[in-house]
């Protein structure tokens, strides 16, 4: 079933190989076949090593993606190693274990500390997560080499973490309206502290621009929920409801219904509105992703080097439809395998899985099917979505001002993988 994709893939890569040395363009020369081989082998080894192989797998994936990306005829190069990532992860664990222990012990306290411990821990972990994102970015940049020079990143990760947390709170409070300005501000911070050799980067995209382009989508996603909640609030008669609630006792819903006849209708209305919002969000997500990627790419500058993106929205939809289609196929396969396994256990046992050994076999089979399915889905997602997004994202970029590339000098800079490890442990890592 992957045959058709391979054919397209080969055609595309041979086309790209023809233009190996053209300046001013970005090409991705990797094929899905090789990427899939790396991922499938990685999935098997992840299974055998209880996940320890992940550092090696991530390194292999990055080497493949970087090496096959050619900007103006020259390839990127990833020089990070799996050992660094493993060390970074262990360092992160050494930081997180005492932290979790402290949270656990403070939760044992009966007084005020217990009540605030949860909130405090959440805020601290959110801050650490943003810190890790910034430091992980620094690690990846310092391990990226282009034309014999590496990238690097300066700036304070703590300052970034505080700013990022502030903008996330603002985004939540304003139901997403602050998101464009938050992103613009954070990207400005990130890129103004990003360097290629001695060539400094900057971000010229504006939050207002993103806001204007995405406002209609925001309205479609958040609008139904807002209207639904507003209508529901109007439909309910609040004074008797409050009284019914304060009386307490059993059958609260009955009492509410008795006190305010519009309540059930209001609840249904609000629920319907939320479902509508969710549907719009799912349907518009690829369009938003394309929009945000175009906006971000077109805002990146390094000295005189400027980028512009012409990423077509339809191609992002195509990627997600393909994912949907293959997910369905995977689901069918999993159901079929589970049915066969269930029947086999029943036949072997005779008593249809009520005895102890049969129960054990069933549990092991269930866990096995679950893990294999999760790994298969993740592999599928990486090949269909991540690889395609990487390819599309780069190949839709036009770069101008490349003459500046002939004057860049090296700057000594390095970084540990601690941030990457922290990001990994807190589950905020990417690529």
């Amino acid at each position, binding site marked *: 079933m992957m045959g058709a994709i391979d054919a397209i893939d080969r055609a595309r890569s041979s086309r790209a*190989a023809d233009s*190996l040395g053209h300046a001013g363009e970005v090409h991705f*020369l*990797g094929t899905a076949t090789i990427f899939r081989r*790396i991922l499938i*082998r990685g999935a098997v*080894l992840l299974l*055998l*090593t*209880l996940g*320890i*192989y992940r550092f*090696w797998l991530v390194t*292999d994936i990055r*080497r*493949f993606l*970087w*090496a*096959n990306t*050619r900007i103006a005829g*020259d*390839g990127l*190069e*990833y*020089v990070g190693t*799996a050992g660094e990532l493993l060390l970074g992860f262990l360092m992160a664990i050494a930081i997180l274990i005492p932290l979790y222990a402290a949270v656990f012990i403070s*939760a*044992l*306290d*009966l007084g005020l500390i*217990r009540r605030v411990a949860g909130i405090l821990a959440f805020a601290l972990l959110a801050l650490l997560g943003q810190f890790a994102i910034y430091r992980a970015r620094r690690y990846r940049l310092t391990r990226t*080499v*282009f*034309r*014999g*020079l*590496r990238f690097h990143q300066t700036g304070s990760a703590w300052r970034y973490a505080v700013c990022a947390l502030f903008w996330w709170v603002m985004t939540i409070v304003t139901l997403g309206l602050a998101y464009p300005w938050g992103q613009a501000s954070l990207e400005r911070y990130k890129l103004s502290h990003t360097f*290629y*050799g001695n060539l400094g980067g900057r971000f010229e995209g504006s939050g207002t621009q993103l806001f204007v382009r995405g406002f209609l989508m925001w309205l479609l996603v958040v609008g139904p929920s807002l209207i639904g909640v507003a209508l529901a609030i109007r439909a309910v008669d609040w004074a008797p409801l409050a009284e019914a609630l304060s009386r*307490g*006792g*059993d059958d*609260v819903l009955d009492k509410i219904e008795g006190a305010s006849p519009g309540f059930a209708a209001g609840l249904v209305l609000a629920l319907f509105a939320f479902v509508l919002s969710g549907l719009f969000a799912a349907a518009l997500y690829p369009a938003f992703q394309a929009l945000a990627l175009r906006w971000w790419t077109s805002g990146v500058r390094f000295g005189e080097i400027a980028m512009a993106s012409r990423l077509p929205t339809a191609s992002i939809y195509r990627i997600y439809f393909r994912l949907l289609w293959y997910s369905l196929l995977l689901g069918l396969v999993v159901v079929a395998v589970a049915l066969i396994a269930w029947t086999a256990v029943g036949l072997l046992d005779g008593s249809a899985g009520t005895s102890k050994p049969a129960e054990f076999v069933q549990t092991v089979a269930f866990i096995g099917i679950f893990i294999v399915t999760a790994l298969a889905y993740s592999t599928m997602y990486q090949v269909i979505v991540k690889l395609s997004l990487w390819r599309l994202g780069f190949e839709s970029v036009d770069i101008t001002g490349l003459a500046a*590339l*002939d*004057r*860049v*000098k*090296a700057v000594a800079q390095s970084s540990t993988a601690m941030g990457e490890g922290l990001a990994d442990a807190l589950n905020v890592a990417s690529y």
Partner: protein
Amino acid sequence: MTTGAPGIFFDGETSIRRAVWVEIDAASLAIRGAEIGEILARWPYSQIEQISAPEGVMRLGRAGKGSFARLEIRDPAVADTIERLGSSIVARRAGAGHARAVLWMITAAILLLAVGYFGVPALSDRLAPLMPNRVEGKLGAAIDAQVRSMLDAGRSDKSFDCGVADDETPGRAAFDKLMPARGGSRAADCATRHRGAPKRGERHCVAWRTYLRVCRPHR
């Protein structure tokens, strides 16, 4: 024997892309500027590593950290020659040199499983008697508070705790009697200490079972 081939060279100090002439001999590669012919670098094969590159491109660098000088050869025949002569060139490509690491990882995974299956139970058996009663009581109280906040909605007029209603006290007394006595039943003590005023609540025995699990006397 010396042969030559064109290549692309980045010196690692600047981003300038140089067209070079690569001289290939038995022990090393000499990189000369294509126009004047000056020697830019000489790399012995023992210090060269091959770096991941797209198909049809051979990318070489100096082994060891900190040097990002790169040489690219785009002629497959020349790449073959270099690979034949420089058999000591280490490949740093996806999946290269993983076999030993993978064996170590599998060993580590088996050890982790063994620690989880044998080590942790053995350790907890030895640690549990060392835990002071005070700490254990605190743990029980914290869990008790959590269980209550989750289950005791306070909407029913029946008690949340078992054994406090009038028709339940004889049963409770009999139960307390059954518990091994050591200055009175510890389970009952524990229960009494943390129960407080009877609350309105459904008759769930969850809280009681939590007491038994957490506050029961040691074996």
